[in-house]
């Protein structure tokens, strides 16, 4: 970008996406109606584990408007295979077959057992209620530790075990270092099961062109390209070339729309059979059971250190609840964090092991951060525990162990190479912003006078691994696809610019940021750049949007495409101006002859010449157009320092985030306004994980937190405003120097908040507390009654009562 005059990049350009969204003109999937369109509704199991012994559709079939009622058995001929798992993390992984509509046995409550199609939404829903399904209940297993034991009821009989896989990574003489280390810290943490709650539910609309065997599929998805390949090749057996997938306006994803879902396949099947457009729109209560959940991981975290607290080794052992099936990337989610359990600290040895376990619950999969919040939580809580053990405060113990600032890629204990970083720099800025010394004084005074409202200060100096990903690395991790992305730029003869990108935004503002990049590189106005996305016919090359990859892979592909445009334009300009290409200077869209600045050609002029093609140089093709496919050589590693300040009412157990400071380093910034917005939203979701949200089941496997009325998605009233700043350490992975910011807040916030809560409670001898830190849990920790430990899980009998770290709960005083 050095030669580019930056007019838009780095500036707070307002979003191009907004005008439709703020006037109600945007078209989300449920806003679309096609001629002849009919509605699908799904019949779902109320049981978590049961054999279907009868499927009586007679009553439903006789209801007004009903066109078809199909059981899983009825639809079986539509599938060439089950829903795909694209990340079989080990060679011997156990993968159950996952039919879009189950034929005989249901494995979690909410699983599809049939579909109904009717003329209207209401008729379809009414008829679905009237389908009479007989079930023979089977034993359920809900607790992942119970499920992992021999003799536990099996989720899938045919697998012979509930253990799906064990994945291991080990560097160095781990056992020796741990046995010789003067200090070893052992902690146990549990990440609650979370429900993603994109505000737009999922939905699918399929338009069949029966005569051609073609289908246009609109889906509220993050991954139109991946969906096309996988639906075609693994589920439907329809040629990929006959499927067109369009992600229209999509109302949030957070990983929950990064999947290949039963309803996507079933809606195609229904449209194929009826020869009519079919629409399915998820109800929120369905979403809670049939859209993936996130987290639900138990971590045993061990740190080995010297007496003064210098880290020697990290050993993390995980049990991860897969739920009942492996969705698209379910088993890989813990592996996305596998390389980050040493955080931003140097260590000699490293060991990570994760066992994935089946239970009779909704499958887990990617939820904002996906594996990296888990890793960050473990190391950031454990480093505080290490500090307590060796008598150093949270700042001191981090400074002692930080990897020093570096600007060239550098190997770390887990075997990766971080791209660049200045962890001390971001922490220093965060402490300054939050007013750390004053806060400590305030805290001391409150403790002194025994204030009912105690203050806690928590740090999180996080690192994440983004820009998924180098394809070769993905291959070595047994991920089934590549990690590249693509962009095409076409400069039209009128000088307007069309961009098609392989990323598929759903709130991230790619149209705006991509326009900034192109406008600066080609010297055109921001308004003259049109960005198209999310349609496999319009942008056929792409790998979609997840894992904070869009800018650092798709945006970088776009940057390279602009450079190809400039180089082609240079050849044409040189030919027109009758000079050698190297005799031209290029700046902000204009080529000038060196030493003769009045002889010039602009990109729009060259685009017109390339279109008329009247006088092109030999071997130059008409049209000013370029495509670039970028496969990153490494991940990117955004980092930062977050500080949460909480007030804990020791009489009620209520926790309030009084102040939240986030200093993030996502490398070069294209649009600061959008970056800050991503941090705000991510931090809010992270605070929600720490304080509010948790899915819980009863002993039969019925989801108790079954709607927004009883699952605590926070409102504005629960959250504070955030104080943000940035440092910029350009990534060495790509030419833009960008790293990604989409998940940073969600990754950083939970340990910052929980470290703060534990800090506030330390006068009570409390060194450990589980998420979410609800008033009840906090109150119990203070006033006795147990059940507060970090590894303690949902109170529901089936979901893990009795698992605690009693010895860790009260270690007797603040050290």
């Amino acid at each position, binding site marked *: 970008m050095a030669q580019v005059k930056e007019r838009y990049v780095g500036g707070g350009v*307002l*979003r191009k*996406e*907004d*005008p*439709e*969204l*703020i*006037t*109600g*003109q*945007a*078209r*989300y999937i*449920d*806003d679309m109606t096609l001629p002849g369109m009919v509605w699908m509704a799904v019949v779902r199991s109320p049981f978590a584990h049961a054999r279907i012994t009868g499927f009586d559709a007679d009553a439903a079939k006789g209801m007004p408007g009903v066109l078809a009622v199909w059981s899983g058995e009825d639809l079986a001929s539509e599938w060439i295979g089950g829903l795909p798992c694209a990340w079989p993390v080990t060679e011997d992984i156990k993968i159950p077959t996952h039919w879009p509509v189950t034929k005989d046995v249901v494995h979690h409550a909410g699983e599809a057992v049939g579909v109904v199609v009717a003329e209207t*939404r*209401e008729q379809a829903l009414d008829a679905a209620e009237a389908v009479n399904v007989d079930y023979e209940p089977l034993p359920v297993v809900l607790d992942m530790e119970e499920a992992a034991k021999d003799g536990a009821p099996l989720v899938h009989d045919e697998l012979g075990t509930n253990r799906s896989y064990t994945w291991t990574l080990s560097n160095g003489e781990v056992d020796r270092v741990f046995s010789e280390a003067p200090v070893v810290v052992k902690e146990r943490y549990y990440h609650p099961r979370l429900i993603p*709650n*994109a*505000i*737009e*539910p999922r939905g699918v609309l399929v338009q069949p062109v029966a005569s051609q065997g073609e289908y246009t599929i609109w889906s509220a998805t993050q991954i139109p390209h991946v969906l096309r390949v996988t639906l075609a090749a693994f589920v439907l057996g329809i040629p990929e070339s006959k499927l067109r997938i369009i992600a229209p*306006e*999509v*109302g*949030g994803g*957070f990983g929950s729309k990064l999947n290949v879902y039963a309803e996507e396949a079933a809606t195609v099947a229904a449209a194929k059979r009826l020869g009519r457009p079919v629409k399915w729109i998820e*109800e*929120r*209560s369905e979403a809670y059971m049939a859209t993936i959940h996130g987290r639900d991981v138990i971590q045993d975290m061990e740190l080995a250190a010297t007496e003064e607290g210098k880290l020697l080794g990290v050993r993390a052992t995980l049990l991860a609840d897969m739920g009942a099936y492996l969705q698209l990337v379910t088993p890989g989610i813990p592996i996305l964090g596998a390389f980050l359990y040493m955080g931003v600290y140097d260590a000699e040895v490293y060991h990570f092991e994760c066992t994935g376990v089946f239970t009779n619950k909704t499958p887990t999969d990617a939820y904002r951060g996906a594996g990296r919040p888990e890793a960050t939580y473990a190391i950031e809580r454990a480093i505080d525990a290490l500090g307590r053990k060796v008598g150093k405060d949270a700042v001191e113990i981090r400074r002692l162990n930080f990897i020093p600032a570096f600007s060239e890629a550098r190997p770390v204990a887990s075997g990766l190479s971080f791209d660049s970083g200045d962890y001390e720099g971001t922490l220093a800025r965060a402490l300054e912003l939050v007013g750390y010394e004053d806060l400590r004084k305030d805290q001391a005074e409150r403790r002194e006078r025994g204030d009912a409202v105690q203050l806690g200060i928590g740090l999180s100096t996080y690192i994440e691994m983004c820009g998924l990903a180098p394809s070769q690395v993905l291959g070595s991790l047994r991920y089934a696809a590549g990690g590249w992305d693509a962009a095409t730029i076409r400069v039209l003869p009128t000088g307007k610019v069309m961009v098609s990108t392989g990323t598929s935004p*759903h*709130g*991230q*503002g790619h149209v705006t940021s991509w326009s900034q990049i192109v406008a600066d590189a080609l010297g055109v106005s921001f308004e003259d750049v049109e960005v198209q996305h999310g349609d496999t016919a319009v942008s056929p090359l792409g790998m979609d949007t997840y894992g904070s990859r869009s800018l650092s892979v798709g945006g970088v592909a776009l940057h390279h495409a602009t450079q190809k445009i400039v180089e082609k334009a240079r050849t044409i300009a040189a030919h027109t101006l009758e000079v050698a290409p190297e005799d031209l200077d290029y700046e902000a869209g204009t080529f000038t002859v060196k030493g003769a600045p009045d002889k010039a050609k602009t990109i729009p002029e060259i685009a017109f010449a390339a279109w008329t093609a009247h006088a092109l140089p030999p071997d130059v093709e008409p049209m000013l157009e370029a495509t670039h496919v970028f496969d990153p050589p490494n991940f990117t590693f955004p980092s930062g320092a977050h500080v949460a300040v909480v007030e804990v009412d020791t009489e009620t157990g209520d926790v309030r985030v009084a102040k939240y400071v986030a200093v993030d380093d996502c490398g070069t910034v294209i649009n600061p*306004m*959008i970056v*800050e*917005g991503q941090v*705000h*939203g*991510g*931090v*809010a*979701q992270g605070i929600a994980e720490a304080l509010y949200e948790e899915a819980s089941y009863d002993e039969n496997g019925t989801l108790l937190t079954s*709607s*927004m*009325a009883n699952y605590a*998605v926070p*409102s*504005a*009233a629960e*959250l504070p*405003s*955030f104080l943000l700043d940035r440092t910029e350490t350009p990534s060495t992975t790509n030419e833009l120097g960008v790293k990604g910011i989409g998940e940073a*807040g969600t990754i950083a916030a939970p340990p910052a908040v929980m470290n703060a809560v534990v800090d506030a409670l330390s006068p009570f001898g409390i060194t450990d507390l589980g998420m979410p830190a609800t008033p009840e849990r906090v109150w119990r920790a203070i006033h006795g009654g147990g059940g507060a430990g970090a590894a303690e899980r949902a109170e529901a009998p089936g979901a893990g009562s009795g698992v605690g770290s009693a010895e860790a709960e009260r270690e007797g005083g603040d050290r």
Partner: protein
Amino acid sequence: MTRIAVTVNGARREADVEPRTLLVYFLREHLGLTGTNVGCDTSSCGSCTVLLDGESVKSCTLLAVQSDGREVTTIEGLATNGELHPMQQAFHEEHGLQCGYCTPGMILAAVSLVEHADGPLDEDAVRHGLEGNLCRCTGYHNIVKSVLAAQDSMRGAATPA
């Protein structure tokens, strides 16, 4: 079927609706006003918020027949003569939206909040005033900024609904 007559965004609309038809589906499916979104089935998220006689209501929680003879303003009716309402403008300028799905409801709830306030709202009042509307993208930070910014320009200015 029941005959209803509702003034929607200033225009009188008559229709035969099933007694069980919710206001939001009357707006979306009978009138084609799809700017009002549905995000949940428990009156929790507020995506479907519209103004009924100037008061913010969750249109998934009212029957269409309850709007008979009354005035409804949806997001499509908020701008006047092509001029964005100050609240819409503020959401744009303060980056008060990302995916946009909660935005129509959030904007209408905010309009109602400001119009019914006795005086200028502070941050805390805005946060509590919008607690019936959920957003999963913005963390509310910029929504609050948007509402605070809009209330100044709204005071004194004639606003619809």
